[in-house]
Every structure is written in C-alpha cells, then in structure tokens.
C-alpha cells in the first residue's frame, strides 16, 4: 500500500499542476491573440527577393504519427521541375530547424527531382539524407509520406513517386521503408487519413 501522507502529497502536487496549467493556458490565450492569426502562414525562411507563392507542405509530426498541412512561401521559379525542387527544399528546412517535430540531418538534401510523363516523379536524395535518417518504421514512413504528398498535391499530374539515393535504387530508407518500388499517391494519401 502507498502510505497516506504520500497520497496526500501527490494529490496536492497534482492539484497545483492542474491549476498552473489552467493559468498558463489563460496566459497563452492572451499572448496568442498577437500570434495565432499570422503564425500558420509564417514563411519557413525569409522569402528570396522577387515574387513568391504560397504552397501547402505536408509536415510530419512524430509524436502524432501523422502529417500536418502547413502554409509556406517559396520563390516563384520558371519551370515545373524547379518548382518541385523548391517545394521539397522548403519542407526539408522545416525538418532541419532546431526542435523540429520530425528532425532530419542537417546535411540531408534533395539532389534533384525529375518529372517523367505520364504522371511519374523521381526524387533523388543525397546520401546523407538516407545514411543519417533515424531508423524506424514510423519515422521512415512519415518522411516518405511527407515527400510524396507534398509533391503530389502541389504539382498537378503526379500520381506516383520513386525515391532514389545518389541516383541509385536503394532497398530501404534506413532499414525499413521500402524504396525499391514506386509509391502510389492515392494509397499514400489514404494511408495518411487512416
């Protein structure tokens, strides 16, 4: 049995935690009035000079085990392919910020993206992206889903995506997510909505 004085002590501490939580929530709500309206549309990095466009990135959240849509500004480039690359680099920068909800290695990068008609895209990652990726089914699948959904939902006409590492097919991203086959966009979206 847990001694009575310990129970009383724990109950008192819990009460204190709850009441401080309520107070904190109140404080945040007041502070939030300054922030919340604009926060979700904050640019990921200061936009480059010149025209920009607002896009929706699908950002992985490890704790929730899900993707969250997030608005971002990217430079408005000339071609479809360049736009796809800017898009995924903007996504990558979110994952490389300190305290990211789904951290990726600072050296991780997208080498290039090829848009192959009809309907296929090939994402070529650098070696550091895969070599330094955390190993685990959830973490790897979230990375894949985030890349595939962000690309497919912003680049019209992409319905399947292949992922290469340094221009070559690799068996898995970091021991789990299978990279030997292409990802079907509809399947990935439906899996994300489960």
């Amino acid at each position, binding site marked *: 049995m847990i001694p009575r004085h*310990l129970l009383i002590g724990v109950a008192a501490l819990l009460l204190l935690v709850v009441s401080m939580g309520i107070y*904190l929530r109140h404080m945040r709500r007041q502070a939030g009035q300054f922030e919340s309206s604009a926060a979700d549309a904050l640019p990921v990095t200061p936009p480059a000079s010149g025209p920009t466009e607002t896009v929706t990135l699908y950002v992985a959240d490890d704790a929730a085990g899900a993707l969250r849509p997030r608005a971002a500004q990217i430079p408005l480039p000339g071609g479809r392919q360049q736009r796809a690359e800017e898009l995924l680099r903007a996504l990558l920068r979110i994952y490389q910020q300190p*305290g990211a909800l789904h951290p990726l290695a600072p050296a991780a990068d997208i080498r290039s993206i090829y848009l192959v008609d009809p309907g296929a895209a090939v994402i070529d990652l650098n070696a550091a992206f895969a070599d330094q990726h955390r190993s685990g089914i959830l*973490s790897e699948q979230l990375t894949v889903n985030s890349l595939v959904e962000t690309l497919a939902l912003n680049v019209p006409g992409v319905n399947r995506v292949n992922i290469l590492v340094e221009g070559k097919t690799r068996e898995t991203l970091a021991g789990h997510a299978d990279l030997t086959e292409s990802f079907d966009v509809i*399947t990935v979206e439906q899996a994300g909505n489960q």
Partner: protein
Amino acid sequence: MRWSNKNSAQYPVPSFQRKAGCWVLSTGYWVLLATVTLLSAAPAAEEKHISVYSPVAIYTLPVLDRSGREYVGLLELLEPLGRVSSQSEGQRWKLRYNAVDAEFVAGKTRAKIHGRNFDFAAPFLIENSRGLVPLASLNALLPRFLGTSANFHESARRLFVGDGGIQISFQLDASNPSRLALNFSAPVNPTISTEPGKLRMAFKRDPVVSPGSQPISFANKVITQASYSEDNGDAELDIAANEPLMANFSNDRRTIVVSAVPPATPPGIGGTQNPAAAPPAATIASGNSHRVLAVVDPAHGGDERGAALTDQLVEKDVTLGFARLLRHELETRGFAVTLLRDGDTSLTLDQRAAAANVARAGIYISLHAVSQGSGARVYTALLPVEGTNKGAFHAWNAAQAPALPVSRIVSAAIVAEMQKSEFPVHASSASLRPLNDVFMPAVAVELAPGEDGIADLTSANYQQRAASAIADAIVSVRDRLGAQQ
C-alpha cells in the same frame, strides 16, 4: 499547443506575460517532475514478490512487509493449487482447502490445521478479510494442506511445490569455436540479454534450480565461467566470456548452446538456421494437423542490426527476445510457431518471405523495436488502391493483396487487445517488406518504450504484456486464419 516556430521578434508578446509564462512553465515542470518521481518511487519499493512453481501452476504473488516480516495471502497462495474457500469472523479466519479445515486467529502464532496445532514463526494477520501468513513458515505450513513436500528458497522467495525443479548441466565443447551446451531437464524460456563480457539468462517462470553453490569455471580461453543466482522470485544464469556471446535454443528448448558470435558472413550464405534452405515444417508436423502455424519474424539480425536503440542496445537483439516471448505465448494458446531466426542470423527480406510462404503459415508477424514514441504500432502492408494503375508497376504486390483484408482484421484485433491492457497503440500502413510479399495475413508490430523509457524495451514484463496481448488477439481471429491455406 505548439511552442516551436513562433517568431516572437516579429510578433512580440508583452514581456511580463512571457516572464510569467516562463515562471509557470518552469515551476510546473519541477512540480510535475517531483510528482512523477514520488509516484514512481512509491511502487518501486514494494515490488517484492514470491514465485510459486508447482506441477499444476506457476505463478507469482505480491509479498507484504509487516513489522519487519514478509507475509503473503494464504488464500491467494493456495487458490491455483486446489479448491479453496475462506471465512472471516472478527479476529477468527477459517479456511478450507480441498478436505482440510483450518482456523487462524489474528495476532496469534498458534493455529489449528486439520485438528492439529500449528505454530507460526510470526503472528497470523487479517487485513480486509484476507488472512496473511509469514513467509518464514511456508516450508512447514504447506505440507499440512497439500500433502506433498514444499521447498521454499526463502532468501530468493521461490517456492517449489512437490518434487521438481529444472536441473541444469553443462557440457563444454572446447573445439574451435568453443561452445557451451546448457542442458535443462525440461523446456525453458529465459529472457536472454548480453552485456560486455557476459551473457545473462533470466528465468522468470522456469523452476530452474542451482547447479551448485559455487560458480563453475571452465578451462577455456573464450567461455570462462557460469554462475547461478536467484533473487525476488527469479533465477539468473550468467555466462562470463572474453568475446561477445550468442545463444541458440535446440532440443525443443531443453538445450541452449552458448558460443562466441561468429565473424560476419554475407547474407544468405552463413547461418545454420537459414529457413529458406530448410523450410521450417518441423513444428507443424507434430501430430496436430489442425493447429494454425504462426511464423514469427524477429526483424533484422546478423550484420543488419536494425535501429541503434542506445549506444549498447541494437534492435535485432530486442526483436529476438520479444519473438521468443511471443512464441511462448502463442504456443501456450495452441498455435504451432516457427521463429524465422532463433539466434543472431542474417536473413534477406526475400528469404523471410519465402520461408513464410513455403511453410504455408496461417499468420506472419514481423517484430521491430524503436527508441522514439511510446507503446506500440501495428502495421499492415501499404498496397495500391484496387483498380488504380495496375499493370507492370504494381505486379510485385500481388502476394499480399488477397490477404490484406484479413491482415487488417488481425491488426484491429491486436490494437483492441493492447488497449485492453492499457498499452498505447496505433494502427497504420507501411511500405515495409516482406509484408507485401507474403500470401498469408501479415502484420508488423513495432514496440516503443513505455512509461519507464528505453529500459522497457529489454524488460521482460513489458515485452510479456505486449506479447500476451498480441497472442490473445491472434486467438480471437484464429477462425479467419486457416482460410488462407
């Protein structure tokens, strides 16, 4: 609430609010930490238990400290062994076990059992109508009820009822590589872990008994010593060595062969337990053709270590220990079980799929472990939507597609059972081989730490809870599994 990525310079928060927020946050943190510490410290101090080994049941019971003595509930102790009932009247407590009547008085050391006096080493106690007896008297007390001998290892709190106990003998083969065979008089199911210079076998539910009072030394360069110890209801056997060791089960889990980890071999070539080379049909050929065969696949192995869970702990070792527990849980529920590896062996994903397909298993379960997150995740294969974009692109996934609906039923059953035992759990899909390549219902379970953090991943209790929930789930859908064959 999201705290990161707020640009406070651009959207300033009044400074007094930020300071107050910080104060509340940091104080809250310390209070919470203190609460958690208190809560976790309190039960940790009372985890004393007694293990009881009898031919009819093996179980553990909590041990209570009263006035410097250790006590156990007598009704709870006898209940698994026979018909028992009790009655409490004020200071008197009556108990009937099969045909033996007994009467006890709270605070007294003298009791009456089957008409004869019995003297306890410390007073009998009544708490909430439960009769408590001192552990120190169990050796004398139990034969009065059971009619058989009882052998209580008091310092380790292990109680052996009737004759029995599993004997251990050692057999060293000093040829290269050195191998130490541990022969047990009955099948055993220890949790095996390694640390530098040592391989440890923890026997939580096996009535193994000491092979001698002194550690056994071997005149061998690699394997140097075996030492046995027992404490708080559990027994442990440590094998000391100068090289990293691995253990393999054989002889229907009556033999464990301990040997040095061999130098790395290319996948698919080395490994005496390559299931692709020798289809594991032995388990189903045991005379019961109606038993469903479960193929349990401890993911990774050999050179392919899986995730580095800590500096010392790699995923392939956790998945193997977890797989052995799951095998035990499934076997006790009437399944035939094949582990795709029962040692530190390399297997390719194709070999794993082939082994499951050749064995015509009713269910395939792949086990993984991860250091992030909490609880468990259950995965089914991520396959393209029916009717979209078929053709050469998706021909590969034909194997799992027909079984996928049942795989999802299995996954949902595992989630339901784990939730019943308050295990945080989620289900999702993953492009994870070899789930895509097997014909039968297939799931992968990724085990993450629980409340005790990363230590849970090697905790027998934690793994046991997960394994038992998975096994219960598979039993609940057993009828759906045979149809695939």
